């Protein structure tokens, strides 16, 4: 389905992000359950999901709050988990920086891993898209994700029963991310970036405040850029988008 209008861009975004529904529903429900188990009422739990919309950071904050960690440390740790969002923002800027500021602000509020990855993959695959089409695509990718994040947080909070460990819901997010990574290995530079990022993330796993992720991400990005530059030198034009 080629993108010819903003409407078709929006629709393609919805379609491309629809597989994430399978993951968002259990993940949001789990947050609702754990939050109520930790003593939050339904209003507090739902507000948390609406104000923050960031699964990993919300789980981190909830766990640390439950462990009686000082408030400032809770906040710093959860924000560190979300630092990657600043890198997503930088990466999106060349593509959507020209959109009206209210659209960029709305997109920023709804930037989650799934919408970012779907969008950046589409922008790179079809560089001819106009800025309004790119924004429409982005809002398409959040349509199946964000409302369900709110709704199933609420469902989880209302149901309030605990989920047995045997359901293995902890692994819903790793599986989604792995499925999203696979189509990204377009060049040797992408493969090298991912390999280095994985190795560094495993070495840096005990670095406090979740900063190991940022260190690993930066190491992977430097590797990708270096390999790309090296490939350009031996074979000009080989990495042109």
């Amino acid at each position, binding site marked *: 389905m080629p993108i010819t209008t903003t409407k078709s861009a929006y629709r393609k975004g919805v379609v491309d992000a629809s597989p994430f529904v399978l993951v968002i529903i259990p993940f949001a429900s789990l947050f609702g359950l754990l939050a109520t188990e930790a003593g939050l009422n339904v209003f507090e739990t739902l507000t948390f999901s609406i104000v923050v919309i960031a699964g990993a950071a919300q789980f981190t904050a909830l766990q640390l709050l439950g462990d009686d960690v000082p408030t400032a440390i809770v906040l710093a740790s959860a924000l560190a988990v*979300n630092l990657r*969002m600043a890198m*997503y923002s*930088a990466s999106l*800027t060349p593509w959507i920086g020209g959109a009206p500021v209210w659209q960029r602000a709305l997109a920023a509020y709804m930037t989650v891993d799934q919408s970012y990855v779907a969008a950046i993959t589409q922008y790179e695959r079809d560089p001819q898209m106009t800025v309004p089409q790119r924004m429409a695509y982005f809002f398409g990718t959040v349509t199946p994700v964000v409302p369900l994040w709110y709704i199933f947080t609420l469902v989880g909070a209302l149901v309030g029963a605990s989920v047995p460990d045997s359901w293995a*819901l902890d692994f819903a997010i790793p599986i989604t*991310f792995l499925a999203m990574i696979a189509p990204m*290995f377009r060049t040797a530079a992408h493969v090298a970036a991912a390999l280095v990022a994985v190795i560094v993330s495993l070495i840096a796993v005990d670095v406090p405040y979740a900063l190991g992720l940022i260190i690993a991400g930066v190491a*992977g990005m430097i590797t990708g850029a270096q390999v*790309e530059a090296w490939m350009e030198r031996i074979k000009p034009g080989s990495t042109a988008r």
Partner: protein
Amino acid sequence: MIDKTSLWIVIIGLGIGSFFLRFVFTGLVGEREMPPWLLRHLRYTAVAILPALVAPQVLWPSGTDGQFDLPRISAAVVTLSVGLVTKNVLAAILSGAATLYGMLYFLG
């Protein structure tokens, strides 16, 4: 029991902080040109961050308190392989989930 004042400080602080992180470049840089060396690095953001986010979870899953877990490793390998072969996100998610639950069931 979670203290309500701390809770609200965290909800509001995390909301504002997360918005700032998500808006810092798209909002403040906007249409201004970024230097080519920076763009070259930013092209690898997704392909570096996502694997780095997942790798420790695959080897040391939180669901098993960090113990190596054959069903989870197998599910990860199957998801990535199906994704690489088919380039289809949904097919990769479904085959990974089938592997995870199949192995959890058979290994009891």
